[in-house]
């Protein structure tokens, strides 16, 4: 994972639970890293350790934590200078979801080691679609749910999301049914 992700986790914890909690999490994760550099690639294990440690320290399940992080990630990247790029990806939720792969492709030009996930929209209707999520990383489906929620906030859209298939349960990929309604 790029440092940007780890930084986002750090900022989320610090802003919501304080720096002391973050230090505790870092200590628990047993990481010898003081500062994350956004454009540096870090082993996925670093992120996994952080998530596990945060889960233990904060008393949240990994799923809850990832969901919260996904939601925060949308806000964080917009704030950290990627807002224009996000805007480029679309003015509403379905358009944005549709352009997500494109967005990742462009981002990939800058982040050469990026292993972006893939998002495919099917069953598009006026107020619903199916989102197919594929990634070479396992267990991040809860983050996707958080991301969708974060996008709902971004586009001021009510979201109702249901995971209808899961890799954890033997499916080829994760699939979500999203119902939305612009406010």
């Amino acid at each position, binding site marked *: 994972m790029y440092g*940007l992700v780890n930084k986002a986790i750090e900022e989320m914890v610090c802003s919501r639970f304080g720096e002391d909690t973050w230090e505790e999490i870092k200590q628990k994760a047993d990481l010898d890293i003081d500062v994350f*550099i956004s*454009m540096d690639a870090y082993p996925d294990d670093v992120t996994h350790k952080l998530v596990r440690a945060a889960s233990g320290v904060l008393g949240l399940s990994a799923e809850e934590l990832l969901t919260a992080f996904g939601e925060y990630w949308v806000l964080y990247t917009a704030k950290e200078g990627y807002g224009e*790029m996000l*805007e480029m990806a679309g003015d509403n939720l379905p358009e944005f979801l549709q352009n997500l792969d494109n967005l990742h492709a*462009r981002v990939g030009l800058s982040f050469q080691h990026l292993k972006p996930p893939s998002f495919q929209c099917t069953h598009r209707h006026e107020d619903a679609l199916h989102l197919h999520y594929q990634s070479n990383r396992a267990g991040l489906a809860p983050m996707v749910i958080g991301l969708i929620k974060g996008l709902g906030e971004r586009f001021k859209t009510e979201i109702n999301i249901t995971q209808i298939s899961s890799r954890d349960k033997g499916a080829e990929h994760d699939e979500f049914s999203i119902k939305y309604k612009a406010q």
Partner: protein
Amino acid sequence: MMNSQLNTKHNNSAVPPQFSLPPHLFAKIFPFHLVFNRNTEVLQVGDVLQRICPNLSVGSQLNQHFQIIRPDISIEFDRIQEQSKSLFLLESLDNAMQLKGQMVYVEQSEVMLFLGSPWITEVATLKSIGLTLNDFPVHDPIVDFLFLLQAQNTALSDTKKLTNELTKQRTALRKANRKLTAQYAVTHILAEASTFSEASVKILAAICEALDWQIGALWNVDENTNLLHCQEVWKASESQFTSFESITRMLTFALGVGLPGRVWQTGEPAWMADMTTDNNSLRRLHAAEAGLHGAFGFPIKRGTQVVGIIEFFSNKTYQHDDSLFELMVDIGIKLGLFAQRKQIEEELLKQTEISASLKSILDSMGDAVIVADENNNFLVFNPAAERVFGNQLDSSANKCPQQCNLYLPDKITPFVKNDLPLVRSIRGEDVNNVEMFVHHPSEAKSIWVMVTGRPLKDKDGVIKGGVVVCRDITERKRVEEQLIYDAFHDGLTGLPNRVLLMERLENAIALRKQRKNYLFAVLFLDLDRFKVINDSLGHIIGDQLLIAITRRLKTCLRTEDTIARLGGDEFAILLENIKDESYATYVSERIEKELMLPFNLSGNEVFASVSIGIAMSTTGDEQAQNLLRDADTAMYHAKARSTTLRYQVFDTAMHVRAVTLLQLETDLRRAVERDEFQLYYQPIVSLQTGKITGFEALLRWQHPLRGLVSPVEFIPIAEETGLIIPIGWWVLREACRQMRVWHLQFPRSPLTISVNISGKQFSQPNLIKHIEQILVETNLDPCSLKLEITESVLMENAKSAAAMLVKLQALGIRLSMDDFGTGYSSLSYLHRFPIDTLKIDRSFINIVDIDIEKIEIIRTVIALAWNLGMDVVAEGVETQNQMAQLKALKCQFGQGYFFSKPLDGEKAQALIAAEFTII
């Protein structure tokens, strides 16, 4: 409008496959393209460019909308064509958007095609132009460039943040290092400094150097003046801060005043961001002059008490720093602890020295000092204590009384353990001056100690033991006992003295009150003629006699009887529990008999006798003093009696008489004050002519109650009490006055006045002066005054009497020797005395007519007088025969009832006036 046959020129050798790009597609693929002709008229505009530059209409002049930034050429077709290989940068005159791209000359159409896209370096610029990333075709690298740029910017931002963070951390680290340096320096200094003063100076320097402060000052709390005084100042520059140092050293701060005062008051650090702008700062101007601004002060605390203030000044304004604040508080506490530790060390050192001194003092002390803990175990038992109580180190206070035999002052009642001074002091009592008798069974000598004890308490007042100091008062007690013995005994004879006698007498009286049949007697003994023995044989023999008499008296008494010496030659004996008066008289007779035997004292045989007065308890007097007085009275009666029985039992009549005499004395004193005396005058008559030649003034006392009191009765008392002196002068003055009156009234009769001078009067040193004064006062011719002095008075001290008489004679006064014949006159002195007249005592006269022997004596006296040139006056002439006999013996003058009894002044005057002739 335009077919996209752009590459036809390159493919002219073969029939190329036909490709045609529809204009709308061209405009979509190249949304920012621009086509203009040789006249620089705009022919075609890309979709997006057209949207954001709505005025860029077809047919308009290109230079109305754009200028060429690069290359540096104007909008001229040919110039542009020449530079067609260059990178062109156009700038919109409408919205300043820059387009970067390439000019392509289309020969066939003679048009210039500009293929480009907006030159954006920041995503934010897009908005200002009205573009979104979606306006760019996917192939346009500008979007990716912007992404990359954004990513790089993000990375840069990270780097900046990291740099800032590092800078911040480095600054914090630097600060922390400085604080650590200061803290280390303080710790190091405190570890090595031997005094607070030394430590404080070094700490001021160390902190100032570590934290870049220019001045450091140490203030001490002066508890006497309740002010802060500057003790030390450290400064970074010798010259720059001299003035500021001086004012700092001069100032004192009260509680709450100035920065130090505030720190003192609150007990918390305080600061001034810039003291030069603080109008309340006393050192504001000096600080400004020295370039000082920030000030910080913190307390040195011992517990909660502020004992000093440390103050720092900086050439920068003070920025508050919590960690610095904490560091200074910590240093303040450390300094306070150091001061406290040093104080404790000093106190410990002192205590150690004191302890050593105390041990030395305790070892050398004469007083026994014992200290025991609350469990009665001895902590201190100095050598003196060992001397007094023996070695008790293995013992405890509890066992002490049994081992030491400690007694109460009665010497027989052992001390109860709980009453022991040490035990009492351990119990918390202050013990003061308890006397204790220490008896060592193993040693013959016992000692007395006086014990003072105090409890030992810790600082919280909890009793931790007790201390007693025991002073050996054996010698004092011995002296006291001796003094007590001396107070009750006579030093010479060792007999009880008056005090002890009185005590025993009172005891006897008390016993008498309880037991009515209990009898006792008090014997008062007075040696006869003891004065003669003393005067003749000396006091040593006199003392020996008293001791010898004491010895003999003891042989006459029972052991239970008390014999006391009252002083001089007076003894008293208390006979207790006797059957009746006979035992007292028996004892008296036995004493008389015992003392009749001569005493051999240093070779002198001395005889002694005593007069004894006996007072019996049956007199009923309940006062010891009265009983002794009664015995004394009885003794006088015994002494006055000339019989061989030299003891007398007191009866009440004796007392009555004694009281009467006392009353008489009192009345006599009053009589002098109230002028109750008067003079009577008895004529002295010439036996030859029968004429009155003068008068003898005789004193009479007109008592207001008793009437006329005889001189025989009161003169001895006046003599005894000394009242005879003022009375005598009164008599002389009155007699002289009266005679002067008579001289004036009867100038033809040269009468003399005879006045008796008492022995005491005669021995007055101012006798001459006094008589002279009276003569001057009364204006009487000295020749008219005759002073009558008895033979015995003159002979008692004949030498000095002769000298006195000569002086009186020199005044012209005439002198008579009174009562001549009753004493022992030395003829040699009689010859030397300038006596004018001899007055023959009445004891010769009253039988002159019948006693032949007396007649011869009188004849001899008259002949002697004649031969010595003296007159003779016969006293007490009472009959005609006596007068005739005296006349026949050629006695010149007579005086007595035959001629006249003494007369008062008035009658005497009448007698003179009548020229009364006796014969």
